């Protein structure tokens, strides 16, 4: 019988062994309370790039996808005190892969035994 931790270890191993990629989640720093400059577009927030690993990046002509282990997402969600992975991805400014910032347009959690073991992020490349 495989428990949830075992399933995550299997997913992590699969992501690492299948062309593991280097990706970072770009998170904006918390806004300054009562500060009008950001609300008026006069100032831009600081950003923090947080490693997403293990992950696998896939790009073809029509779609860009990033598979991320649930262990990585749970780690970041816990460290930054987010309620859920959904809120984390909603708040993120995007994902940086090979120096390119991609916007997150959709995400799907792959579940087994009712728990996520992997997240599939659909990304949008920047317009050049």
């Amino acid at each position, binding site marked *: 019988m495989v428990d949830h931790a075992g399933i995550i270890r299997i997913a992590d191993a699969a992501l690492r062994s299948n062309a593991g990629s280097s990706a970072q989640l770009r998170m*904006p720093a*918390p*806004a300054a309370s009562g500060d*009008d400059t950001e609300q008026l577009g006069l100032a831009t*927030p600081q950003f923090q790039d947080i490693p997403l690993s293990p992950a696998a990046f896939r790009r073809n002509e029509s779609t860009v996808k990033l598979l991320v282990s649930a262990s990585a997402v749970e780690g970041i969600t816990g460290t930054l005190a987010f309620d859920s992975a959904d809120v984390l991805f909603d708040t993120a*400014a995007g994902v940086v892969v090979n120096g390119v910032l991609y*916007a997150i347009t*959709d995400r799907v959690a792959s579940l087994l035994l009712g728990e996520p073991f992997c997240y599939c992020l659909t990304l949008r490349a920047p317009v050049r």
Partner: protein
Amino acid sequence: MQNAKDTFYEMLRGRLAALNPGRTIVLRGVVRPGVLVEENELVSTVVLPDCFRVNWTQAAGDPDGDLATIALQCEIEYETAGTALNGGMDRGRALSAMDAELQATINTDTQTALKSNYKGLTTGLAVEPMATSIWWGQLVFGKVEIKDDRLARTGTVMVMSYEKTSEL
């Protein structure tokens, strides 16, 4: 033009917060009144419900006279899914409440505000009141749109301002 946009936003935010302090959003970890200017925020595919999203869509100018006049079209989008505990069955009432708040904020007796320059805030200076004003017309409500489980509407208002030569 930017001073007029900033002043209108500050007016809208202040009046909405005074009218309904409970309408707030959490954006990047900070609770703030439920109104934002889309062009001043991070690009996002997520549309926040239960808040007013300001977009500046058209602009026109009249350079004749001692002071140039500009007209800016402001579209205020908002949508709601109602209350989850009610299964969203109150989404129509929630949208009506937002309609009423917006109408009470914009269609008031005083449809003018002293224009201010907010650029000094970046260097720690105070907001600088200017010698000209902004004023605006009546709010026009658009049709209700159904977006999955949400009801959405766009209110449009024309904002006008005199522009000093230094602003052009």
